[in-house]
């Protein structure tokens, strides 16, 4: 665990000195707060939580894919990852270290979303749990993209459309039954269903997200072994 801890500390220091990365964790809750205060609270037809759940789902389902892929692609591009592999860092240690900090930051930001929103106690717990689970899935997916990309530009070119597909799949699903069936296997759809309707099946949503995470983890381990030394 000392190796994962070393990478976690490195990631924390690195992120606070990287304004491009830092802004991703500030902009979404800031927009949710402004829109809730300016629009939702003054309009009785709009739920107080509308912008919180919308921005929260975009943050957990889309933004974190871009953040994580950028972190890993940077390590691949400058050959730091190769040195870590040579120093004996294992795939799970690297993911725990680099992804662990992004996950922690993601959970803190989810907490901020929770504070902005108008949730009951049980709703808040469900919201935080599903946000944490979706954040985990996005982090692993971002890590895979970062690992397979040659550099940050390539990572961004892959991550952006993929994040948009995952992010907009729930919207398409709400208009088309076939799309809804297909999207029900995606963690972003389950995130969207749950944050918009807390009476939906929590265990089913979490199970689907859990399977997504396991599949993505298997792909990550494969990618790390294949690309870790080539980077």
């Amino acid at each position, binding site marked *: 665990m*000392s*190796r994962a*801890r*070393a*990478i976690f*500390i*490195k990631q924390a*220091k*690195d992120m606070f*000195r*990287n304004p491009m990365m830092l802004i991703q964790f500030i902009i979404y809750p800031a927009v949710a707060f402004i829109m809730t205060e300016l629009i939702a609270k003054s309009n009785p037809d709009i739920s107080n939580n509308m912008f919180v759940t919308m921005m929260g789902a975009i943050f957990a389902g889309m933004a974190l894919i871009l953040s994580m892929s950028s972190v890993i692609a940077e390590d691949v591009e*400058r*050959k*730091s990852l*190769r*040195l*870590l592999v*040579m*120093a*004996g*860092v294992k795939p799970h240690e690297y993911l725990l270290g680099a992804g662990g900090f992004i996950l922690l930051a993601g959970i803190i930001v989810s907490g901020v979303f929770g504070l902005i929103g108008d949730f009951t106690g049980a709703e808040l717990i469900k919201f935080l749990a599903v946000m944490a689970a979706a954040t985990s899935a996005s982090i692993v997916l971002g890590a895979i993209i970062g690992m397979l990309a040659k550099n940050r530009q390539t990572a961004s070119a892959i991550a952006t459309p993929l994040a948009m597909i995952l992010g907009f799949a729930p919207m398409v699903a709400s208009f088309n039954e076939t799309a809804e069936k297909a999207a029900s296997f995606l963690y972003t759809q389950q995130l969207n269903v749950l944050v918009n309707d807390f009476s939906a099946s929590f265990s089913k949503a979490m199970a689907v997200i859990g399977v997504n995470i396991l599949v993505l983890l298997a792909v990550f381990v494969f990618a790390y072994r294949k690309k870790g*030394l080539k980077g």
Partner: protein
Amino acid sequence: MIRMNGVVKRFSQQTVLSDVTFCVQKQEIFGLLGPSGAGKTTIINILTNQLQADGGSHGIDAAASETGLMLDEDGLYTRLSCVENLNVFADIYAIPRKKSLEALESVGLADAAKKPVNKLSRGMRQRLALARAILHSPKILFLDEPTSGLDPAAARGIHKLIHNLRDSGATVFLTTHNMDEAVKLCDNVALLHKGRIVEHGAPAEICERHSAMKTSPDLESVFIILTGVELE
């Protein structure tokens, strides 16, 4: 000890290493010389298990954790300071963080310990990469073009450090395309051309062997005699 015996490596259909054989003794500075594209980095990658050979055998008498590696690209975290960069690896190797400061001192970067890497000159970055490679006191050190792009004064500093490392018990395996550097630094060298070792031994012995073809030849002219091409 480091050894390669009949190693062959192909990328797609192209053979980049053919029947590469050499042996490096403990506490020796061994230089692999050749122009760009000769296969020097491929040999380091095979010895450090970053690449698999397609034929032959190879081995080093040290565990992976007992080797130090300086790549052709430094791999430093540019937003972190010098000491923070080394602390990441000190924590990974589970050695005390005070070793980071000692390593910085040994490469003459103690005064720049808190300076961010993106504010360092190229020479300072090279020295920091070397400090990271020696941080855990490795038995075997692989250095890929350690003085590439450095000014003569900075290169001399690296040479001195490599000699000190050898004197403290390390075996040093380096690649270079600089013949003067090889003569000054190495106990033994191998001349590599198009993936084949065309000559090996102590620099003085190699020059002596080819003295019949040219009066007082240096390594550069021996390389030209053997391959018909210039190194630099």
